[in-house]
């Protein structure tokens, strides 16, 4: 009997592994195009599950679309096939490094990602030690690129985004008190809340700041706390999973307060959750649908043409800014490879700071830290009747 129980436990453990790996290996296999000849590998370090699964999948879609558009790159007159190596970092800072190690052992020349600053920071050293450059797509926390030479990024930063949002709250809603909600231990939301707080207090406002623990799905009391604090705006730059619950609860409690958030909320998960509800949502983001009609049309047709892509985009063809960013990141990486004239990670890393690329989200150039030089953010408002994003303003910082 004892043997039987050990056997059973083993069988369960193995089936667990089989299940866990199933999802990600499917994705990778789908992108194994003709592998013969000259191949250069680009690693895609994105979450496909966990808190940021939805956003990570949309960012990956942009990269995959770009790869479908431009599957080859020319290095010194030779044609190289670009192969994407996609891993799932599970939105988790303890599982991310394993996924990163996986990319290193696959011998990628450059890594794109991740969605979510926390995982990027956690995996940074693995890429650094292996001498592989990483190009952050939408990780906005300053710590990602700070103090290292290998991490670059193409998006704006949280100090900038936080200031933009604080200005927006002050200008548009004449807010005196802001309620900020972050997830405990999450670098992105805690960081952004702090920058918002600094900027907002600098403008003479008052901030009530609270955090919720991992795994929390009951936001009743947080919404009630915001109402009790008599706040004028509700600032919650949290993951889309938590966001959907917050929106639902805000509507259920009839919270008459504009909700502000950062780039993560620019997702059809949010518009889906807010549709038909009594909420006022405003977010800052990288790209406004319609900014480049040709790109919009192409990617929509591509997403619609494949049921897996459609499912990964949340079941419709609404474009998220992260998808456009993923698209630009891929081409920025190709640009760096061309400039390096080599598939060697060290050469690509050396070439990256000099890259200048005009993408669909604007001109991408890097400063000495490795951050993109960006000076504007787009503010969008969610139309709760039609469930789409509406452009509000292009906001910079004075």
């Amino acid at each position, binding site marked *: 009997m004892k043997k039987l129980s050990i056997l059973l436990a083993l069988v369960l453990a193995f089936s667990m592994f089989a299940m866990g790996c199933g999802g990600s290996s499917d994705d990778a296999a789908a992108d194994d195009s003709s592998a013969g000849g000259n191949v250069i590998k680009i690693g895609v370090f994105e*979450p496909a599950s966990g808190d940021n699964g939805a956003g990570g999948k949309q960012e990956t879609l942009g990269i995959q679309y770009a790869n479908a558009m431009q599957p080859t790159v020319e290095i010194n007159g030779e044609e190289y096939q670009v192969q994407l190596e996609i891993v799932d970092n599970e939105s988790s800072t303890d599982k991310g490094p394993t996924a990163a190690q996986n990319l290193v052992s696959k011998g990628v020349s450059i890594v794109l990602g991740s969605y979510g600053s926390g995982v990027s920071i956690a995996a940074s050293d693995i890429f650094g030690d292996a001498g592989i450059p990483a190009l952050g797509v939408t990780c906005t926390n300053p710590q990602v690129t700070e103090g290292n030479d290998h991490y670059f990024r193409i998006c704006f930063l949280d100090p900038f985004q936080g200031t933009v949002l604080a200005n927006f709250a002050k200008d548009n809603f004449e807010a005196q008190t802001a309620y900020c909600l972050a997830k405990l231990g999450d670098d992105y939301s805690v960081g952004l809340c702090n920058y918002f707080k600094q900027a907002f207090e600098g403008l003479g406002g008052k901030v009530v700041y609270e955090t*919720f623990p991992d795994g929390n799905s009951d936001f009743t*009391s947080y919404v009630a*706390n915001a109402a*009790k604090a008599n706040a004028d705006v509700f600032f919650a730059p949290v993951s889309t999973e938590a966001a*959907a619950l917050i929106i639902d609860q805000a509507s259920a409690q009839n919270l008459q307060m504009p909700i502000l958030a950062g780039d993560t909320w620019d997702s059809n998960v949010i518009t889906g959750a807010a549709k038909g509800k009594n909420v006022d949502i405003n977010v800052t983001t990288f790209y406004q649908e319609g900014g480049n009609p040709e790109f919009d049309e192409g990617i929509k047709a591509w997403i619609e043409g494949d049921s897996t892509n459609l499912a990964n985009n949340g079941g419709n063809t609404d474009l998220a800014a992260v998808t456009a960013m993923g698209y630009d990141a891929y081409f920025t990486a190709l640009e760096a490879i061309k400039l390096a004239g080599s598939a060697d990670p060290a050469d690509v890393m050396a070439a990256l700071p000099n890259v200048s690329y005009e993408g669909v989200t604007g001109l991408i150039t890097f400063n000495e830290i490795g951050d993109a030089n960006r000076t504007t953010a787009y503010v969008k408002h969610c139309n709760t009747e039609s469930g789409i994003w509406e452009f509000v303003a292009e906001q910079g910082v004075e």
Partner: protein
Amino acid sequence: MDFIRDNLPYILAGISVGGQYALIAIGYTMVYGILRLINFAHGDMFMIAGLMGVYAVTWMPLYLAIPFVIIFTVVLGFLIERVAYRPLRSAPRMSVMISAIGVSYLLQNLALYVTGGLTKTYPSIPWISNTITVFGATTKVVTVITPILTIGLVVALMILIHKTKIGMAMRAVSRDFETSRLMGIQIDNVISMTFIIGSFLAAIGSILYFSNYTGVMPTAGAMPGLKAFVAAVFGGIGSIPGAVIGAFIIGICENIIKGMGLTTFSDAFTFAFLIIILIVRPTGLFGEKNIDKV
């Protein structure tokens, strides 16, 4: 009046979430009472019930979907016991526990595989997802009906346990496994029945819980499951009224702590509270030696 208006939302939320924990906690406490097994897969059963609710409404109309979810969960609970626990009936207790942990991970990973890791939004059920205003606090109808439904179900369960033949068999098995077998009680049937009741309540709990907190993800069962388990220990594991009262105390406690502005520590306080209670009363609130352990 201001005081009530300010604090009522927290108390309402606490009572409601407490009722939902209670429905899960009964499953833990009954299985423990009879098998001396902590069924770690119970929280994940609850999650699977929620996930099934998401899919069921796309397959059939709502009035069929709800009974379907309940029946599916009951069958799943029955099958888990049949496949993963019954073959280990004479094995050391630790083996069954490991088996339960295995089932828990299996269910979570299965959900991860099916959903692709994305959070599914629970369908809104007419009426119970509507908003109402109670003394100036706006909330969903489900918040108000949860405690009523919970107490109704618990009363029905107590009647079942104390007035029916199967209830008597359950009480007997919980007292003494071997002797009740000698007395001609089909203990396998009694154990199956326990799992069926536990799963049934978990399914009801999942409908109520996810109507209020609409995101269903593969790990959605972990936290409510843990809290319900804590509630069961808190009330004295093996005791049904204890589990229910424990669940209400934990639900109200964590919401009041959040309302006091100590949001960061709400879980920490809840668990610290548990430790204090267990130091003072090691058997929990109602876990006296002679209680009916069902």
